[in-house]
């Protein structure tokens, strides 16, 4: 029965105003001692006007954010096969450990003698990453994958500068994530696209043709964003090296191969690792992440400050560029020393799995993706032939005659109780649907998803395009008008002018 309630609430789905619409002067959610009225020493800049913050009591605040949370879908809610994002289970143990006072309550400028455990933790985390990648060096400071890319590409710039070479062209496959070209540009490189082959990999011939002495290197994602292993990765490495360039590997998809393939064995020079993907630090609705970068011997000297070294007197944090002989750090990427809160979670995750569990995890991730692929391949249009890695890519040709778009299809999936896959990425495929189940999903959950997808395909084929165009129907908000939002942006609340 459809009807409108007086409140606008719908049972357990409660409408929630902005905090700014709920405040009352004189209300507060904290109790702070009365100030003494000391004469200020604020350089005459004492604030005189109101800030404009609303006053809410603690109960209001708790309810506000509780209700808002209930309008979100997370991994804890259900199947979340967002391709390229590795939405795996986030263990609560990691949250608990990250909150130990001996970890969360450390100031980054404490004397080293008071943070030996923290430095050891960073060192341990680094050690696991080095062994898993087979690489000789790692920089722990990048704040996320994109900053990891910056870190790697700057090291390449620094290495080229050291060689006195002015190489400025970077080869980037068309299928690359947007951060790759953006990063290359931020480092002063020009981006040269490499086309993909029919089977979703780098076109080796085209790649080779593009090599030259102005080529700084290649940024290659492997497994790539089509969910495929770059078969020719070693050849690519050899070729780029032979041409005097470096091999930056985007490691966003490391989850497919952890404990089974060491990137070092493929000939890479640098690779970032998204701890918030492969090593399960929570995505947090957009972050924070962490993007450590492993380096080959060729690039290691240029790794940024700071970094941890083990000395006779314990662990030491190198914070200046000129402290160590033979090191030529390209600079500093971030305040302080990296995403400690993420290291502790990632290390907890790695220790929990162990070498055996990590290997099992990547195998299960690939198995789940291939199973999903097998179940859907007859009804959806598989983008590229063969086995996939940890994610399965489809194009929208299965929707060809239905007047249903990838977006429409995804919105209908929402009503079925799933988070949609990644849509329209990678760009090399028309109307892409990139599905990454991860290893922490059950076969039952994948089966349920596949059954629902197949039922939707049947519905689309039956000609009910209107149904899809208006989906979703069952969510707290239905399809939102993004065009209107961009046309006349309202980016903050403002008091109504009376």
């Amino acid at each position, binding site marked *: 029965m459809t009807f409108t309630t007086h409140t606008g609430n719908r049972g357990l789905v409660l409408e929630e105003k902005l905090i700014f619409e709920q405040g009352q002067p004189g209300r507060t959610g904290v109790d702070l001692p009365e100030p003494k009225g000391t004469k200020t020493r604020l350089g005459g800049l004492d604030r005189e006007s109101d800030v404009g913050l609303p006053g809410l009591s603690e109960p209001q605040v708790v309810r506000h954010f509780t209700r808002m949370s209930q309008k979100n879908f997370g991994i804890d809610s259900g199947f979340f096969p967002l391709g390229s994002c590795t939405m795996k289970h986030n263990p609560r143990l990691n949250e608990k450990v990250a909150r130990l006072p001996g970890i969360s309550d450390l100031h980054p400028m404490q004397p080293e003698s008071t943070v030996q455990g923290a430095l050891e933790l960073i060192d341990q985390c680094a050690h696991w990453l080095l062994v898993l990648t087979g690489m000789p060096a790692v920089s722990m400071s990048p704040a996320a994958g*994109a900053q990891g890319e910056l870190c790697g590409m700057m090291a390449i710039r620094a290495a080229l500068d050291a060689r006195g070479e002015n190489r400025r062209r970077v080869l980037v496959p068309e299928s690359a994530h947007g951060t790759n070209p953006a990063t290359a540009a931020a480092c002063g490189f020009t981006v040269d696209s490499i086309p993909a082959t029919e089977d979703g990999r780098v076109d080796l011939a085209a790649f080779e043709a593009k090599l030259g002495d102005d080529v700084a290197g290649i940024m290659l994602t492997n497994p790539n964003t089509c969910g495929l292993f770059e078969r020719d990765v070693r050849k690519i490495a050899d070729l780029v090296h032979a041409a005097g360039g470096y091999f930056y590997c985007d490691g966003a998809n490391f989850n497919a191969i952890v404990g089974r393939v060491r990137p070092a064995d493929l000939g890479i020079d640098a690779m970032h690792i998204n701890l918030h993907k492969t090593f399960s630090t929570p995505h947090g609705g957009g972050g924070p992440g962490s993007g450590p970068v492993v380096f080959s011997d060729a690039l290691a000297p240029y790794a940024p400050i700071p970094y941890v070294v083990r000395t006779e007197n314990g662990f030491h944090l190198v914070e200046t560029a000129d402290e160590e002989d033979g090191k030529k750090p390209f600079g500093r990427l971030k305040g302080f020393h990296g995403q400690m809160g993420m290291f502790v979670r990632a290390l907890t995750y790695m220790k929990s799995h162990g070498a055996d569990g990590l290997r099992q995890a990547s195998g299960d991730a690939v198995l789940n993706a291939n199973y999903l692929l097998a179940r859907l391949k007859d009804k959806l249009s598989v983008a590229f032939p063969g*086995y996939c890695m940890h994610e399965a890519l489809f194009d929208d040709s299965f929707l060809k005659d239905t007047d249903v778009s990838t977006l429409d299809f995804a919105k209908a999936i929402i009503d079925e109780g799933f988070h949609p896959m990644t849509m329209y990425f990678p760009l090399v495929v028309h109307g892409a649907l990139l599905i990454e189940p991860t290893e922490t999903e059950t076969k039952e959950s994948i089966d349920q998803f596949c059954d629902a997808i197949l039922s939707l395909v049947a519905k689309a084929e039956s000609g009910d395009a209107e149904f899809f165009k208006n989906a979703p129907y069952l969510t707290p908000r239905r399809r939102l008008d993004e065009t209107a939002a961009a046309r006349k942006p309202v980016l903050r609340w403002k008091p109504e002018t009376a």
Partner: protein
Amino acid sequence: MRYLPLTRADRAAMLEAIGASSVDELYSDVPEGALLDAPVDLPSHLGEMQVERDMMALASKNIGASSVPSFLGAGAYRHHVPATVDYIIQRGEFLTAYTPYQPEIAQGTLQYLFEFQTQVASITGMDVANASMWDGATSCAEAVLMACRATRRKKAVLSGGVHPHYREVTETYCQYSDTEVAGRDGNPEQQASVEELNDLIDDQTACVVVQYPDVFGRVQDHTQLAEVCHAKGALLVVVFTEAVAFGAIKSPGSFGADIVCGEGQSIGNALNYGGPYVGLFATTQKLVRQMPGRLCGETVDQDGKRGFVLTLSTREQHIRREKATSNICTNSGLCSLAFTVHMSLLGEDGYRRLATLNHENACKTADALDAVSGVTVVNDSFFNEFTVKLSKPAAEVVETLVSKGVLGGVPLSRLYPNRSDLDHYLLIAVTETNTDEDIAALVGALKEALA
């Protein structure tokens, strides 16, 4: 393994459905020899209790900042975070969601981002703010790059009052994009004048960057500087490290700043040994389309109900690729939630009172320290952090203080390792968390250390 639900039977059934004989077969694209056939050389899996004990052993090798009297600042501040904050950010619907690309099932994240943006704009006194950056230092660098885009110029003047990490990160970001970073390191005894900075502004100068309060704790009016900048076609960028300050001092927006950005850790976020933190980034309406990072905007849904979406994404890497305003993708989502929740609890009254208490505590400490022989308070003005000059090298003194169970501040030599003229200076931060006993302990330990 507790996180891996597939059973042996599942695996067999799935391989059969796939038509593969083994999981290894799925890896057939891996080059010859690169596929390992055994686990790497790392320990085996461990149960939860064992892992927890391992991690507790590491934690116990550190001295928690709250376990002793502690006065460290320099860009990260210890404040009391209400228990509500940590509860909310642990709710799975927030914790385990990602960037709200499907707004119909991400209104929770989107609404708090809209609230966050409004809060940040309010405290900075600016028109709009984005949905967070990685931290204060990277925000500073991105502000400079944004100023360069907006002005089509290629030089930034950084005041000596800017935190060295912010300067270093800005230099790092600028070095490969032909952007000059001018201005010299600061001096706690002498504040840069408007004239000095003015002299550095030329017709290639995109912006002047000042920190407010500055790295030595000083609080300076930049209204005149804004005018100077604008007269020369440059932007004024104001950075900050202590977001609590704006509860007590005028907003940077009131100076006429064009970009205001900095560190939001102070509100809602633990010290975490330096990260993750949350970069706050605000600007004027005019410059919105030059902004880096995500933006959340208001709109309506198909039924006409108000809702929120990510918007203006044509600025971003996933749409614009090499032409994007920044390469940032994953930002500081959950830290911005913590900020939003804490700020919601504070409200107008709480935010301002918190700032007042910080300032009063800092004044009290400054007075107490000034009375110690061998200690001179350098600052005329400050919010909750100030610089003192000691009769002995500060780094040594800090080590002595550790042995007396006090975390006594940040020696400037830690921030400026190559500036021997700063060896005797110590940066002291005092917040609402410091008790009178803490202050007495610091005073007592300093007396002994300097005797």
